[in-house]
């Protein structure tokens, strides 16, 4: 009889525990970001044509030329991409070499976007079917990857770059320099 009682209390504790876990998890903010699983892996081979007239296209070889780079995945139709333009300009001013992939975009739209918000990119590849985006595990625009001199992906920033992220990205670039 006593054993039965103990068992029932254990059951109650178990149910309360499970409900408590639900209550806790439901209060956690929802994380909708899908992180790339490619961090630490070499960037897959690709060769994209130029997205605009005044910048060359981008290939995986350009990302393994010995110098670490920021790889920005953006689109002219993407609102947060315009919002991060000042931060990208800051990164460029502080010595970052930034290359870009324009996702599903027309050359004239990219040109107009860059004319309006500035062009911090040394190269811009044109990815009309999100092939490169899928190959590096990026799930949206904008995203910014740190790629070291050997073409290995070192860090991923999801979403627009805010003021506080500039220092983080510069630090990650410095770390990639040593790699």
């Amino acid at each position: 009889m006593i054993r039965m009682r103990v068992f029932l209390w254990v059951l109650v504790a178990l149910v309360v525990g499970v409900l408590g876990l639900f209550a806790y998890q439901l209060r956690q903010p929802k994380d909708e970001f899908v992180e790339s699983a490619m961090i630490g892996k070499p960037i897959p081979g690709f060769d994209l044509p130029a997205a605009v007239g005044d910048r060359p296209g981008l290939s995986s070889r350009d990302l393994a030329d010995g110098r670490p780079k920021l790889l920005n995945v953006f689109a002219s139709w993407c609102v947060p991409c315009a919002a991060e333009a000042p931060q990208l300009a800051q990164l460029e001013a502080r010595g970052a070499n930034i290359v870009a992939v324009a996702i599903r975009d027309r050359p004239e739209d990219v040109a107009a976007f860059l004319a309006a918000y500035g062009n911090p990119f040394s190269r811009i590849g044109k990815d009309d079917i999100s092939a490169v985006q899928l190959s590096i595990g990026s799930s949206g625009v904008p995203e910014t990857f740190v790629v070291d001199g050997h073409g290995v992906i070192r860090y991923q920033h999801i979403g627009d770059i805010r003021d506080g992220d500039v220092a983080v990205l510069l630090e990650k670039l410095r770390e990639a320099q040593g790699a």
Partner: protein
Amino acid sequence: MMHLPPSVGDFRESRSLVGFLARAFKAHWVPAFAGMTMVWCAIALSSTVQAQDSLPPAPYAYRQLDDPALEAKAQALMETLRCLKCQSQSIADSDAPMAGDMRHQVRTRIAAGEDPEHIRAWLVERYGDYVSYKPTVSATTWPLFAVPALLLVLAVLILRRRLGGAR
């Protein structure tokens, strides 16, 4: 069987349960549903406006493969891959441009003779298990499979003890 009284909206019929429920439904749920619908429409509209890109869909985003056997293979795989833009839909269900681009990848790779599980592995390598809807037993998921089996064993044991005690 439940018959609604002819005066569903009659406020004087306060003592009947059906009348009470009908009134409560009218007073709270109808405006609530209307409000929710409006909110959802607004959300749907705003996200479409935001995610507008100007390019046509990838060639095989909406076009089926000519070979029905290959298309069936592709379709089966697409139904078990998660759309990364609209995360509770499969890429077969979603009209997001990125889902279209993923369908293009799947169809062209299947057409080139690639094995569906190889394509899945390629995506999992990039996005983690999250991209696949197909359940797999792994270091993190094994309790999901073990716990029901354990509960079943426990239930059988308890039942046997109880029934045994009654005899």
